[in-house]
């Protein structure tokens, strides 16, 4: 076993131990943390935004900035792809 293999084994076991410990510390399945935020959103979403779909009201109303960031990412990707392949069309 070379030194590089030893290093790989040690590194791999450390990472595995990290994952196993964090898996043991997880919540039991089906019982998440109780937070006030989700109760508030579930109770008030129909009255405040008027939408039946709570997910849409979170995405476009309560967390609108996040959607703006997603839209900006898509815009940047399109601009990059069109710029990159523009010369392909001319030549």
């Amino acid at each position: 076993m070379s030194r590089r293999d030893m290093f790989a084994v040690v590194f791999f076991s450390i990472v595995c131990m990290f994952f196993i410990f964090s898996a043991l510390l997880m919540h039991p399945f089906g019982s998440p943390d109780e937070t006030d935020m989700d109760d508030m959103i579930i109770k008030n979403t129909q009255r405040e935004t008027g939408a039946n779909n709570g997910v849409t009201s979170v995405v476009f109303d309560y967390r609108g900035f996040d959607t703006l960031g997603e839209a900006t990412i898509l815009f940047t990707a399109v601009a990059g792809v069109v710029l990159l392949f523009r010369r392909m069309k001319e030549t």
Partner: protein
Amino acid sequence: MSEMSKIVRTIAAIVFPFIMIYGLYVIAHGHLTPGGGFQGGAIVASACALLLVAYGSMWTMRRIGEKRLSVFESIGAFFFIALALLGLFFGAVFFNNFLAGSSFLFGDIPMVGSNTGDMNTGGVLPLMNFAVGIKVVAGLFVIILVMAYASNHMEKKRGEKQG
């Protein structure tokens, strides 16, 4: 990608409007049923990708063109940000839902709890769904279209060099 056989083209032309209607339904009912602008936009863009696969990138590029799609993408982004800024003017904060509760477009408030669902609810959410839907359709399709066209172009160039 070059043109596929006549069978594939006919089936694609038959299936295309149904996928289109389903995607537009998901966008339009984003505030009532699961889905929304992003998901419905992805469905409509995949319908356009079906056309691209069946009819070839040359035909699609000649029919649609990537410049027009870029314009649509920018229009969607512009309407999205404009609606958010209108919330700043009419309400108090950025992304304020200023139409909800008013007696204007999409202004009704539904009964709290489970109900049958009314299209005329949701405030700015349906409008934002439409804006994001246009944006996602144009954005995803222009990426696929330009890449397919470029790969077709490269293949043709390589063939010319060898032959």
